């Protein structure tokens, strides 16, 4: 087993627990004033989140059982120093910051400018105060994909910023799903910029997202992320995004790995019966999907070893990217990867850092 501490570890999914109070300072008008006038700084991040974006329910801290420092949504605005403290705690050299607040954007269905205003403010705030390539702190630029023009503006804004290494689509609720031609211009631009597209699920309105009426987080948290990733993967693959933009790197985050063999097997089965409905594909969808990259968290280490081994084999260890999801309650530390018995040391190094350094050109 390698000494993970001595290796370069890249964490592809770190959540900066941004606060509206801080980001609002950078938002365009009229949103800047709207937020400043809304007293949100008095109500803490948790309250602000539910006031702005639709929320999910359920106590992520497992009703008092998860007691780790920084595991809960902070009462105070996030302090950029905590990123480097956390990276030290996990022995991570490079982290890709994903906005925590934006995870709920999928639940916004109004055609107002809330998501655009937030993302624009967030980009500036992170650049100004948090991201620091010298310290290994990079960012993924959230795409307000419902508004293609605004997304292109953001790509333009970050194009020459070393600190941003990819675009992030928070996928929960994306409608139409993200293979739709509507989003083509964003993919085209990302391909041109060599900017990987990271699909990150979100917990937005989880209780109602898959089906209304679930009672516990164990139910919605198991299904919400999974359903979101699966629906976007099917759409992106069947509508031929990888054929249209063959140099675009596609990354899916946060559903572990065991769902992929099941999904692609099922999709291939459909495809062989009706390939003309996915006319841009040259061969089975699985061959495209296993060319995508996948974040490992939350890795199903409790699964049977032979199942995990099969999943790694089908996806390819050159396609897996270590992700912690820190500081969220169900984070994975690098040892989760390092201790997998079926990997050799080169594969461990690749998953922990090597693959990500290449994909994100860090």
């Amino acid at each position, binding site marked *: 087993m390698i000494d993970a501490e001595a290796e370069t570890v890249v964490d592809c999914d770190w959540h900066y627990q941004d606060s509206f109070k801080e980001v609002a300072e950078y938002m365009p008008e009229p949103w800047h004033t709207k937020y400043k006038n809304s007293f949100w700084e008095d109500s803490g991040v948790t309250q602000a989140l539910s006031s702005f974006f639709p929320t999910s329910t359920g106590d992520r801290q497992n009703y008092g059982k998860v007691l780790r420092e920084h595991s809960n949504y902070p009462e105070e605005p996030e302090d950029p120093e905590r990123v480097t403290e956390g990276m030290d705690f996990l022995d991570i050299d490079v982290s890709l910051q994903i906005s925590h607040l934006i995870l709920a954007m999928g639940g916004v269905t109004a055609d107002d400018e809330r998501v655009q205003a937030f993302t624009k403010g967030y980009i500036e705030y992170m650049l100004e105060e948090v991201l620091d390539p010298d310290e290994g702190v990079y960012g993924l630029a959230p795409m307000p994909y419902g508004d293609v023009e605004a997304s292109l503006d953001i790509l333009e804004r970050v194009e020459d910023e070393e600190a941003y290494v990819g675009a992030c689509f928070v996928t929960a609720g994306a409608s139409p799903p993200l293979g739709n*031609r509507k989003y*083509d211009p964003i993919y085209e631009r990302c391909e041109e910029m060599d900017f990987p597209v990271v699909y990150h699920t979100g917990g937005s309105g989880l209780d109602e997202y898959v089906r209304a009426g679930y009672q516990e987080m164990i139910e919605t948290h198991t299904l919400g992320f999974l359903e979101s990733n699966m629906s976007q993967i099917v759409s992106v693959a069947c509508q031929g995004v990888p054929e*249209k933009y063959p140099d675009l790197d596609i990354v899916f985050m946060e559903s572990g790995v065991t769902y992929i063999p099941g999904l692609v097997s099922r999709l291939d089965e459909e495809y062989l019966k*009706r*390939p003309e409905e996915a*006319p*841009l594909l040259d*061969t089975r969808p699985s061959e495209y999907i296993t060319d995508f990259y996948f974040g490992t968290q939350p890795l199903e280490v409790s699964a049977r070893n032979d199942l995990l081994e099969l999943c790694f084999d089908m996806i390819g260890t050159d396609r897996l990217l270590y992700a912690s999801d820190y500081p969220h309650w169900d984070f994975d530390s690098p040892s989760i990867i390092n201790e997998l018995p079926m990997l050799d040391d080169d594969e461990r190094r690749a998953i922990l850092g090597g693959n990500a350094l290449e994909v994100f050109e860090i």
Partner: protein
Amino acid sequence: MSDAENLVEVGPASEFEDGDAEIVQVGRAEVGVIRAEGEFYAIRNQCPHDGGPVCKGNVQKELVGEFKGTGKRVDQQYSDTDIISCPWHGWSFELETGIHIGDDRIRVPTYDVVVDDGIVYVDSGD
């Protein structure tokens, strides 16, 4: 050229309309001889999916799509390629080559057809 003793007689060409399929036994295999747009094809009547009677399926043109540019709808047109679709679950093969239209690693065996003096024969390839 095919060797006369390899030829399995199917029947008079004049009795085939476009779309007609005639099943004959070629060695141990059931083979369908199909007429499409005046041409004859022969393909094994056993689907690699689950053994379905491929040759009883519909013959039609393959629908293909072309990417016309960012943001544009995929342009869908029928191509010149004739395909035959297994009537059980729809697996579809190029009539001429027997190759599955979605995965070229899957293939139904095809045979040469000879029309001699108005009579259609399948070349068993033996």
